């Protein structure tokens, strides 16, 4: 049976890169590819609850991390999820040198545009994965 691909952003409370991760995840799971993927709350995974683990064990996941701490990738792996792709916002931001995406609270116009572009990339990955699973 096909199960939706999990797109899991980091908590991203401290830096704008985290907010970029979260907003990109929401955009893909709610607007671009809602049939093929869904998000999951990282905090719930962190609690170590059995129910949370069951939701993710053996499932294909794309993690979106803001900074090099790689919270999402590490925590998803610890909980038994299969991380098929680890995306790191700070690396993507290297392509937008000099851009001012905003703060951890609020994105700028430029920030939103970057979110849309990152979301497109994730969507392409989701599409490919979903096809492979079929």
């Amino acid at each position, binding site marked *: 049976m096909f199960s939706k691909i999990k797109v899991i952003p980091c908590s991203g409370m401290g*830096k704008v*890169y985290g907010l970029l991760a979260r907003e990109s995840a929401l955009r893909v799971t709610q607007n671009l590819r809602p049939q093929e993927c869904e998000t999951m709350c990282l905090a719930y995974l962190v609690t170590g609850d059995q129910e949370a683990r069951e939701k993710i064990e053996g499932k294909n996941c794309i993690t979106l991390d803001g900074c090099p701490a790689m919270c999402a990738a590490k925590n998803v792996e610890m909980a038994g999820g299969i991380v098929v792709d680890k995306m790191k916002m*700070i690396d993507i931001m*290297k392509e937008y*040198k000099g851009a001012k*995406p905003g703060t951890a609270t609020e994105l700028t116009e430029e920030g939103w545009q970057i979110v849309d572009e990152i979301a497109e990339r994730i969507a392409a990955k989701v599409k490919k994965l979903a096809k492979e699973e079929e």
Partner: protein
Amino acid sequence: MSKRYALLPCNGLDKTAGCISREIALKVEERSESEIICPVFFRVAEAKYRQSTQDRPLVVIDGCQTRCASKLAAEKNLKIAEKITVTEEAKKRGQQIGASLRLGSNELALAEAIAQQLLAEESKKEKEVKRAGEEVVAFPEKYEYEIYTKDKFIFRVPKGEQFFFNENDCWAYVIGHRARVGVTDFVQQSLSDIMFFTPPTIGAEVEQFGELGNIESGKAVFEIVSPVSGKVVAVNDELVSSPERINDNPYEKGWIAELELTNFENDRELLLDFKSYFNILKRKVDSFHV
């Protein structure tokens, strides 16, 4: 011996300096077995140049301080062997660059001079690298630190008599005639996640307080101000692809470069020891708002 460079000019079409960068690349390419990388095509078809950028030392030629070509190289994680900025070269030679996009005789002469310099340089640089290899100085992998904290930010300052600091928050660890140089936790914490590292050129002679490349985050660019004078004999190449090592620990895996000291006795006069720098750091941290 014929040179084999991969040449990445910025090719800036709307500025004279950019047009000169292209001219330099052409001149070097004509007289060596080098290959030119078109920055525009590189963006859309990276694979075409993969072989060339892997096999040959990369020479980046920027027209102006915007350094588009360097940025492109950093973005693509390319290792830069040599870097030229036309406006700086002009300054060094005391030459003016005209405003016309069609190059005049002055501009062509400048291009010629820089091209000749590049054609002559490689053999000299090879020698430097070899010499550097012969005299291996082992720097410690771990240091002891004194710690100062503000909120959740931890500022480490390494202890030991071999450590010297300047007020621009850079350190040097000196063994004999060699020094390893880097930035302190203050730089790393105030920049936050470092995204780019522009290394200094191996073989370059640097004065005390001269520039040893720079590092850049989403917040700012920081020019690395060398605490010591000397010749650059090694660069921490790992930082080009993983600049976050500077955030992890700017003293150990995040060191910047190694220099062969030319006038350390003289340099010392203007350097701080651990204790004095630690006091300065505390003051800076207390007045700093993240």
